């Protein structure tokens, strides 16, 4: 409240400023006012004080009052006139200020992307002050982003969770993870303050727009991509141009295509027809040939991982059934070098195309089956992407329950528990390397070679570690056993017993015998007595953490055992 007073703003405005300026409370060394207060840094507040946006907000406020006044006086005309000339503000300077370099912006892009993707699927609502325009903007931005990632093959990992689909891309060394909700109508919850969300969204939209601009600029593509649904003539122009313009413009058309195609799924929207119409004009430009061109003239400086990603689905042609999540797959498959078509209008090739190798289907049974292609469930693609190999399709065939979908973000060794299927995949990976290795010749494979070796190394090391662990455990058990034996032997001779640290007195009079574990525990705890309080607390906390982890692993193992017993 002190801050509010010194800034002379109300709480709402203060919060808004904090959000767009990225100012957060700090943890002071000494909490003068007590524990239940929020402390902002004085410098932060004075930083806010000199913010031109503050002045702008005040201006807007007074302007609003004018409008209010006009309305109250029933002067509709004036109110309307005033409303058309409202002062606006821009956030670009703030973005520059918060993220002085592009890398900084990329680093903080996670939340931004997640939010924009979420709002792209929200229904517009008057009550929450969420306009259709913003939803569309979010949609456009997210498609632009996806188009870029897909075009540069920067996508690394995909994970389908209950919450949505997680994607991880790597741009300029930054790992960017974002979550897109499933393409199902989202519901509004009441316990959410939309004002805050929208303020965040406002900032994020601007940030993402600038980021996209920069990214497209780096590809020499004009931003925003001209694929305005209303300008059909322009789209035709694009198509005409695409034949002979250099790579940059070709990139552009592909972008356009990707965008248009992904947006074509918004069937519920009225303008989708227009887009579809426009799509028809554009599609010929996105023939496989164009894609191949793109791949061919791609720069040489790509790192190996990108290369690997790019060539994963290189010679495969996919066809998506109507019921599979098209948006996601249209993003993922081209990102890994695949060629895609789908059931519906504007598809680049039809279902009866002979060259289709994989048909993605999510139904219990397929109707008409072509023998020349494999019918797989969409999970196969995600698993292939995460494993970076083409997995065998038997388990993913139509009508079967696919094997468990595992998170690519988990380090199984650190977790202490490796699911069965992860091991299967690992084995398959190793096998794939071996298959690939003997093949002579192609430069790509040569490049992959060290990587393979690396993988193998990792594998062997992991196995080794495991083996060592088991060995150690065995040794421990053995030792314990020996000790117990020794105890029994030396139990009667009291004086000799003193030699061993872990010994129990074997006196006849003694009734309560402290067990060995107790004593071992005591000896282990002994040094903790001598620790300072701070260290002891830290130690305890760490112990608790370890215990929790091991408990959860134990629980999972127990469940597995039970399941096996049931079967």
């Amino acid at each position: 409240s002190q801050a509010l007073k010194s800034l002379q703003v109300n709480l709402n405005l203060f919060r808004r400023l904090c959000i767009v300026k990225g100012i957060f409370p700090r943890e002071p060394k000494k909490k003068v006012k007590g524990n239940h207060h929020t402390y902002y840094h004085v410098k932060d507040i004075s930083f806010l004080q000199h913010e031109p946006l503050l002045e702008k907000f005040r201006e807007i406020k007074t302007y609003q009052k004018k409008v209010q006044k006009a309305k109250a006086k029933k002067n509709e005309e004036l109110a309307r006139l005033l409303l058309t000339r409202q002062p606006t503000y821009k956030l670009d300077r703030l973005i520059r200020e918060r993220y002085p370099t592009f890398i900084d912006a990329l680093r903080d892009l996670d939340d931004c992307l997640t939010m924009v993707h979420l709002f792209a699927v929200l229904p517009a609502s008057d009550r929450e002050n969420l306009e259709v325009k913003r939803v569309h903007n979010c949609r456009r931005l997210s498609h632009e982003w996806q188009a870029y990632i897909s075009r540069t093959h920067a996508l690394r990992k995909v994970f389908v969770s209950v919450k949505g689909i997680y994607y991880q891309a790597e741009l300029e060394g930054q790992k960017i993870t974002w979550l897109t909700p499933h393409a199902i109508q989202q519901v509004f919850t009441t316990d959410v303050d939309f004002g805050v969300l929208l303020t965040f969204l406002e900032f994020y939209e601007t940030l993402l727009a600038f980021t996209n601009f920069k990214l497209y600029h780096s590809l020499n593509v004009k931003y925003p991509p001209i694929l305005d649904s209303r300008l059909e003539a322009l789209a035709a122009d694009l198509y005409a141009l695409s034949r002979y313009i250099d790579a940059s413009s070709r990139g552009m058309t592909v972008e356009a295509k990707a965008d248009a195609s992904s947006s074509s799924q918004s069937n519920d929207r009225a303008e989708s027809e227009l887009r579809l119409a426009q799509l028809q004009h554009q599609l010929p430009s996105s023939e496989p040939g164009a894609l191949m061109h793109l791949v061919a003239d791609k720069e040489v400086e790509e790192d190996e991982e990108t290369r690997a990603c790019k060539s994963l689905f290189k010679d495969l042609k996919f066809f998506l059934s109507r019921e599979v999540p098209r948006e996601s797959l249209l993003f993922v498959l081209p990102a890994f070098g695949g060629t895609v078509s789908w059931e519906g209008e504007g598809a680049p090739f039809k279902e009866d195309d002979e060259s289709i190798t994989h048909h993605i289907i999510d139904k219990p049974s397929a109707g008409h089956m072509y023998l020349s292609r494999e019918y797989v469930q969409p999970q196969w693609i995600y698993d292939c992407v995460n494993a970076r190999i083409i997995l065998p399709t038997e388990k993913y065939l139509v009508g079967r329950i696919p094997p468990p979908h595992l998170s690519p973000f988990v380090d199984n060794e650190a977790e202490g528990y490796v699911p069965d299927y992860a091991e299967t995949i690992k084995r398959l990976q190793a096998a794939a390397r071996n298959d690939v290795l003997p093949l002579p010749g192609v430069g790509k494979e040569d490049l992959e070679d060290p990587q393979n070796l690396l993988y193998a190394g990792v594998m062997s090391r992991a196995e080794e570690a495991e083996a060592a662990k088991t060995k150690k455990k065995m040794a421990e058990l053995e030792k314990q056993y020996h000790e117990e034996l020794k105890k029994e032997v030396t139990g009667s001779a009291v004086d000799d017993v003193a030699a061993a640290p872990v010994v129990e007195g074997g006196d006849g009079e003694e009734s309560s015998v402290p067990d060995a574990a107790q004593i071992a525990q005591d000896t282990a705890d002994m040094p903790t007595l001598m620790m300072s309080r701070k260290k002891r607390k830290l130690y305890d906390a760490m112990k608790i953490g370890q215990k929790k982890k091991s408990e959860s692993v134990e629980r999972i193992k127990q469940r597995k055992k039970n399941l096996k017993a049931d079967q």
Partner: protein
Amino acid sequence: MTKKKSEAANEDQTRDTKKKSVSAVKSSQKEKPVLAKQVKSSKEEEDLLLDSATDSDYDGDSLSGSLNSDDFDSDVFDSEDDASQKETEGGDKDSSEDELELHGNEDSDDDDEGEQVDSENDEEDGSDEEREVAEESDSSEDEVAPRNTVGDVPLEWYKDEKHIGYDITGKKITKKEKQDKLDSFLANMDDSKNWRKIYDEYNDEEVELTKEESKLIRRMLKGEAPHADFDPYAPYVDWFKWDDAIHPLSSAPEPKRRFIPSKWEAKKVVKYVRAIRKGLIKFDKPEEEPNVYLLWGDDSASDQKSKHLTYIPPPKLKLPGHEESYNPSLEYIPTEEEKAAYELMYEEDRPKFIPKRFTSLRSIPAYENALKESFDRCLDLYLCPRVRKKRINIDPESLKPKLPSRKDLRPYPNSCYLEYKGHTGAVTSVSPDCSGQWIASGSADGSVRIWEVETGRCLKVWQFKEAVKCVAWNPLPDFPILAVAIGQDLVILNTELGTDEEQQKIEELLRLGTLPEQDEAVAAIVSWLPDETYGGIKIKHFKNISYVDWHPRGDYLSAVMSAGETRGVVIHQLSMHKTQRLPIKMRGLPVCTLFHPTHRGMFIIATKKNVRVFNLQKRELAIKKLETGLREISSMAIHPGGDNLIVGSKEGKMCWFDMDLSSKPYKTLKNHPKDITNVAFHRSYPLFASCSEDSTAYVFHGKVYSDLNENPLIVPLEILRGHSTSSNRGVLDCKFHPRQPWLFTAGADSVIKLYCH
């Protein structure tokens, strides 16, 4: 030719007039609401008719009329005609009236009817006429063009011409021949229909009224409506809605300002015009700047350091694990029982996410908490203080300090060797004899026993009525006597263990002869009495004794009672059978006392919070005060060297004081979860121990170096368990064997244990 024309003209005229009258009728019908006007017009016509009527009655009059007055009638009709084709403006009206007048003056001769109306009336009539014309001008039937096309010009212009004007084809219309006045009069007289004829000067022809027309005129003269079927008294229809009019209609005339352009508006317009000319008002919208541009153009500028505080990037969200998959392995899904167990948990402990399994991608529903989670993340981002925290990624075991190996620190007591059983109540206190051969114990059942240490044989038993609080063996080897605190009494017992010589000495000592004079104040507190039952000395105090301690010389012993100031601690001198109070006032209730092992006069008293060191010989204030920082001190022991002190507290903490070093504890160990009941130092080995209500005893290695610069070394050695808890009490006392590294512990389970190395 001309005749023909004139005939035709005549016809025309008759038709015209007919039409006119009809239209007049129509107009009167049409304009019922405008009653006043109607009346006026009818009045005017009435005049006309009146004239014609008089004409018809007799001619002389009409003659005179035609002679003396100007005949207006035709003029009137004419002008009416004209006006019907033209407009109704005031200026015109005036001019036509003028013209009429002129006309009248000129054509005095050529009249058939010769009517007369005063010229005053004329003007009125004219104006009325005009109005009527204005009214009826909307009827299209009147629009038949007149024969003459000269328009509204004064007819006098054509006075001298042969023609009266031009017809529609542009040919001249010649004037009719002027008849002789006499002839015309005669003709008129002959013609029976003459009274119905009217001369139209404008077209220069005569018009004959039909019967119907004359009837019409007659009715009008009577003041009736021109048409017979018109009902002037039709019921009144009130068209005005009175529903919501609270005020009567104003009869005030419309103000003028409503009809003239506003001055202020004009001024405003001028202002706007000027503003536009100056460029203050712009009509075209400002050019929209591009929304996005290359924000991070060159990263060279970014090298400059930001002036602001360091930016702490927000922590990234936790990445999802296997269990969040839509199709996790089966072992990640909790069973039904586990889910039920989650329901019983506290809100905070409950796992946030319960894994679910969907067999296909299409069956995944929308995640209902998506918005909520996004919102929570937003809240975290802008409301949570961000701090950079260093995460220690180390093995917790590495935090433990390296201790010297316990093997090197041997011998120390680590296992139970003997148990001394015999007491029926909790053993509250033990005390080994200085030779190490015997051990005395006091119990809550009121018995004091002496045991042989090596064999565990109970040598002697004394039974008292009250619970024994504390036993203490005299530190002198040749005086095997025992001080026992029982309730308010301090009993000195002869153990009868020594040789005969010693026995003699003891008996002498314990014989209460003539007691020396005591201070009055002391006498009020303490009284020395012989003990009848066991033949010792009983020193009766005024309060319950909680602690007894011998001076190392064996002559003095101190007793602690829960009383303040100087009365809480008394010091008895056995050889003199004398008692002293503490010479110094003391704050707080004393808990236990100690005689300094090396320095004779030093006396250490522990109150609940602090430890004070006094010099009894100098009788001055406390020379040292040790701040323990503990909540409640329960026990205290001093290193045989005399410089180090350990203090046990009821919160389970033990403090080691280096008295030379500081008044603050050198080390505080929190080893027991429950109250520490006693702490003890070994007399010769570098060992000390603590025992607690949690029925454990700790043995520590506590080495004090002779080099003052070196800190004492404290190493925990062993946790001694074995006692069982009874009535919430564990180990009540512990003492070291004076020679061997053995520890005696007295448990509330009425067992004394000996721990050996």
